[in-house]
């Protein structure tokens, strides 16, 4: 996206331009405000929140809410803080992302460079599977995970995320590899490289951009998932579920500042990934999945 240089800009007058900037800045405010408020208030003592103005900066700065959210807040029945859940999420996200991206890459390679009768049907089925409402699989999934003995465990969640992520990763890699010249694959075949060698030596080295997209996409989706975590998390609940438990717990005083600190903690990894590699993500997303 930022690679594109063309713009459809038209020449406009001074007043119009001022207006344009005004509108753009107002929207920036709209997007920033809730998060800004959350950050500011996570650094205030509780009485400043309930008694004061949410827009104002803290009079007494404190990181107490953060420490509390991280290590001692009441999550469900245990005062463990979010730390163990953060770890759960991490343990789940890494293998889920790695496996689904790997599968997506090799699937995309097969579906574009080793086409066979009926491959389009397979791709169609995969593509549709990206968009199903997960409610349709919740009931049997609960049963199957139980039967496999991985209900309520991290491997169970990894399996779920791989299964429902592989459609998207395949879509990305397929669209990316479709633009990769087939002649190169043929040249490598004549040179004597086999199926895996061609993938490894010819396609993978140029797959950087789409891998970034696939990894970010999967990372964001898996990290942010709530439905599967809440349904199948069991003893290994991910961060989102824990955060929801923290925020919506009905016992005791609502410690908003701790809630905010927790929410930001839950958002931190994806925000970080987004800040570091976001531009590649959007660019690749445009090229990869959504024909804009």
């Amino acid at each position, binding site marked *: *996206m930022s690679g*594109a240089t*063309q*713009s*459809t*800009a*038209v020449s*406009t007058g001074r007043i119009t331009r001022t207006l*344009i900037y005004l509108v*753009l800045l107002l*929207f*920036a405010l709209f*997007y920033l*405000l809730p*998060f800004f*408020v959350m950050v500011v208030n996570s650094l205030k003592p509780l009485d400043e929140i*309930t008694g004061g*103005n*949410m827009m104002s900066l803290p009079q007494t700065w404190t990181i107490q809410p953060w420490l509390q959210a991280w290590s001692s807040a009441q999550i469900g029945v245990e005062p463990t803080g979010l730390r163990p859940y953060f770890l759960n999420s991490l343990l789940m996200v890494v293998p889920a992302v790695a496996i689904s991206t790997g599968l997506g890459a*090799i*699937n995309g390679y097969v*579906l574009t460079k080793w086409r066979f009768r009926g491959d389009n049907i397979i791709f169609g*089925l995969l*593509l*549709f599977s990206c968009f*199903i*409402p997960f*409610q*349709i*699989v*919740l*009931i*049997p*999934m609960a049963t*199957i995970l139980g039967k496999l003995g991985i209900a309520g465990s991290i491997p169970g969640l990894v399996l779920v995320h*791989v*299964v*429902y992520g592989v459609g998207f990763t395949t879509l990305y890699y397929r669209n990316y590899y479709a633009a990769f010249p087939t002649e190169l694959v043929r040249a490598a075949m004549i040179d004597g490289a*086999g*199926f895996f060698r061609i993938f490894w030596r010819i396609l993978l080295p140029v797959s950087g951009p789409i891998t970034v997209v696939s990894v970010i996409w999967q990372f*964001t989706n898996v*990290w*942010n*998932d*709530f*439905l599967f975590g809440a*349904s199948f998390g069991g003893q290994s609940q991910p961060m989102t579920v824990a*955060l929801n438990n923290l925020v*919506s717990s009905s016992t005791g005083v609502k410690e908003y500042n701790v*809630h*905010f600190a927790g*929410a930001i903690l*839950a*958002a931190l990894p994806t925000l970080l*990934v*987004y*800040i570091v590699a976001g531009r590649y993500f*959007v660019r690749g997303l*445009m090229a990869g999945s959504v024909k*804009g």
Partner: protein
Amino acid sequence: MASRADDADFRTKLQEWIPKLVLSPSVALMLVFVYGFILYTIYLSFTGSKMLPKYDLIGIDNYVRLWGLSAWWTAVSNLAVFATLYITICTAIGLTLAILLDQKIRGEGMLRPIYLYPMALSFIVTGTAWKWFLDPGIGLEHTMHLWGWESFEFGWIKDRNMAIYTIVIAAVWQTSGFVMAMFLAGLRGIDNEILKAAQIDGASNWSLYRRIVIPLLRPAFLSAFVILAHLAVKSYDLVIALTGGGPGRATELPATFMYSYTFTRNQMGTGAASAVIMLMTIAAIMMPYLYSELKEKK
């Protein structure tokens, strides 16, 4: 005559099988976990399952029951309101921002990530932020009062009739930047010479966009629609985090309905039926998109 080269045949044949072998784990997972599960849920929707799956076929009773439930009607009509507003407003904001941002704006590089970052957040985080922001006791209303605007009232989140709109606001906040990015990419993909030609033809700015640019963005509109529509039907987390379906049942959506009927009220058959209806809704939206995606790439 020539001799057949049998030794080499083997490797070629193997090479023909490897791709299919490599693809097969994913295909197997998909067939079982997606399509097998779909069939299973469809089957359950015709059984009298309560807390656990039962396999006694009872015909379409669950569907009849479902459509007789006022809670389901609330969920469906909420979804209709939510989806319509969500899709329309996201598209409108996305398109507006994209067009404005495309006017050779200084600081575009700063603004774009600001518009986009909510997409990186989980709906639970978004819900937490907005729940508080919209809470009349401590959020926006409270702040306005403190700033001296005593008559300011914004209690939608506590209001049965208005709460669904707070879900729209939060959802739009989260996704509209992403829609903006899609339109921006579409705009940047338009051939500049077409625009020059139109300007030489004397098109005004307004008619340039209305007659040339926006029609050329058709694919972006289609993609935006498909993505937003399927997000709307799937919406679950945001409701849980923002309103918990309340006040009362005022913000139930089919997704939350399905969950509570299946897992907390032990009406699995009815829950399955509601899931099937959600699937059919999405299938109806997706089919044309899937069709075009597959046809073009052939």
